[in-house]
């Protein structure tokens, strides 16, 4: 007779819900709202866009055909509008980022310490950030009229014959950059003010005791200590400038003569005017890559500079 030999005793089973497992479970539970949101609203669409970008999909006719990398090849090698659009986006970013950051820093330096009127001016410069983009565009379109516009009338008082700002391609780009800077500079100003206020006064006092002047204190003490904030502000502003859409849509519609047709607006046109969702997705992926590379380059330059 064969059979299992009973030992007569069994080892006590370890509880399934160990402390480690319980902590892990709780951890996942805590991050799950964000994680689910990330998967549904970010990772899911991102994967979908990659798939769409490899297809020819006309939204209206609902015809979707896999075409491999043809959309990317068309954009990068055959579509002259694409490079024109990239050029415009680079000009916009190259104009907006330094102007915005310089102005924001100057305002922050002027308004970071308590004083008479400081609250008023901080509010005044921040107000455009929370102003409706539509209202902002309507007002500026009115002010930037050719002959009857307030800007040109003011220029005329000092003998300058102002251009037809929004109807001449080069001046239109200048106008959209300037009005965008005025709208958004308040945000960077606040970030710089916060950064400036976090720098201990001791450093400045010590430098002053050593005989340093204002410029030397700024260059040798304040500016280096602002570097981490400057990096963040630069990355955010650069990304924002490449993604600009509403401002262009409202101010110029990409014109005149495609002079302000930037990448985000071009993607919108392809997706929502022509319903070429596949092509628009490929353009969106290219924009994603450009912005990612720019952000990484800025971070690497910063790390190299501080090493």
């Amino acid at each position, binding site marked *: 007779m064969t059979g299992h030999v009973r030992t007569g005793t069994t080892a006590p089973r370890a509880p399934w819900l160990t402390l480690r497992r319980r902590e892990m479970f709780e951890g996942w539970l805590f991050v799950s709202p964000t994680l689910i949101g990330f998967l549904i609203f970010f990772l899911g669409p991102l994967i979908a866009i990659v798939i769409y970008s490899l297809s020819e999909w006309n939204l*209206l*006719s609902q015809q979707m055909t896999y075409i491999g990398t043809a959309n990317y090849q068309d954009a990068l090698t055959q579509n002259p509008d694409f490079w024109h659009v990239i050029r415009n986006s680079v000009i916009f970013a190259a104009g907006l980022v330094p102007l915005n950051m310089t102005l924001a820093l100057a305002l922050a330096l002027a308004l970071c310490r308590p004083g008479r009127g400081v609250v008023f001016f901080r509010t005044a410069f921040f107000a455009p950030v929370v102003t409706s983009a539509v209202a902002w565009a309507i007002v500026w379109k009115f002010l930037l009229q050719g002959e*009857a516009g307030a800007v040109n009338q003011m220029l005329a008082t000092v003998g300058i014959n102002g251009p037809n700002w929004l109807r001449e391609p080069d001046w239109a780009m200048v106008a959209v950059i300037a009005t965008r800077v005025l709208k958004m500079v308040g945000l960077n100003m606040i970030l710089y003010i916060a950064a400036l206020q976090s720098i201990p006064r001791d450093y400045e006092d010590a430098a002053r005791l050593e005989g340093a002047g204002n410029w030397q204190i700024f260059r040798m003490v304040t500016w280096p200590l602002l570097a981490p904030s400057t990096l963040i502000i630069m990355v955010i502003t650069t990304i924002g400038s490449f993604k600009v859409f509403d401002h262009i849509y409202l101010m110029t519609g990409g*014109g005149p003569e495609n002079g302000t047709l930037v990448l985000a607006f071009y993607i919108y046109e392809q997706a*929502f005017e022509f319903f070429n969702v596949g092509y628009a997705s490929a353009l969106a992926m290219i924009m994603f890559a450009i912005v990612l590379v720019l952000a990484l380059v800025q971070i690497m330059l910063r790390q190299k500079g501080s090493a």
Partner: protein
Amino acid sequence: MHPRRLAATTLAAMTFITAPLAAEELRFTLWTGNDAHLAIFNEIAKGFTETHPDVTVSFESIPAADYTQKLTFQLAGGNPPDLGWMFEDVIPGFVEAGVVEDLRPALEAAEGYELEDFSEPAMALWSEKDAIHGVPFSTSPFMIYYNKDMFDAAGLETPPELAGKGEWDMEKFREVAMALAEANSGKWGFEFKDGQGYDSRILHAIMPAIRVYGGYAWRDGDCGFDEPEAVEAITQLHDMVFKDKSIVPPGEQGDFFSGNSAMTVNQISRASLLADADFEWGIAPLPTGPAGASPIIGQAGIVVFSQSKKQELAQEFVAYMTNPENSELMAEFFPPARHSVLQSDTFVAANELIPSEQMAYVGKAIEEGHVLPSHPRYAQIYAAMKPRMDALWRADADVQTSLEAVCTAIEDQL
């Protein structure tokens, strides 16, 4: 409970529960949110439910600027409305994509519909061979609006007076516009439609002139902007903008409705903006040209979407909504393309802001007018055309060269 009674009670309960489920809802998208407009549509829907007690019609307003996009996304997302309004410039694309239904059988089957009552030019855009893909419920011609006070200030005869004498042509239009600009300092003689003639309303700005000069925008894959008639027409407008300085130039604002321009072109629906105007105004036909008169109409139609699961009912509702009685009801805001309504006393008295003799111009223009050029790839054509048109509207631009560039830019799309 007795089994029979139990069965009867259960049956009654089931009937009660399933009755509301049997009710059908037609979802109708449109781009107006105006209460007066919606009141008329709800009244029509109420009339429909008298013969279809289980049916409700819900009107869903989507702002005009987003209308086509949202509609397309609803269709693509499997959440289609059953029927809805359709812009004239997008219907060819929707027809080509096969997303709207042929309504002819339903319209012909509807009692008292009188399909032949519709003006033929007005149906052209919505018909393809024997199929009718939409019914134009609004056929609104472009008229000249004029500020009588500014004409009086310049000591000029008004456009209706000139039209009455047969003198209201493009030459007179130029002469009058210049005289108005000179007599009303700081104001303009003429403003393109809604001040958008250099942007989204390019065709509205140039087509009236091109057509009365005998030209065309495109037809059968051929671009007509660089033909002599179109060049001559645009040259006149260009001269009026930059030499005469009588038309509001690009980059400036000269709103007619605020009294800053003496004339503009628009549809009668815009008359509501002048209800409280502090100046006297009127409407007149578009000026004629070397090729005679060529009224232009703007249209909106009602379509039934192919994805709708209530095809029969939706098509029946379109036939009901656009029958002679309901067309008359809608005429106050939406001029119909039906001969019988246009020639009726009800129509000329339909708009309380516009005198009946001027409404007669509207009726005549609807009967004789043609829609703006359309194309299944209109969005692409517009995008290709726009930058070249921007270059045209510069003071130093050569009109012929600029229009040749327009044709080169759009020929692949045609």
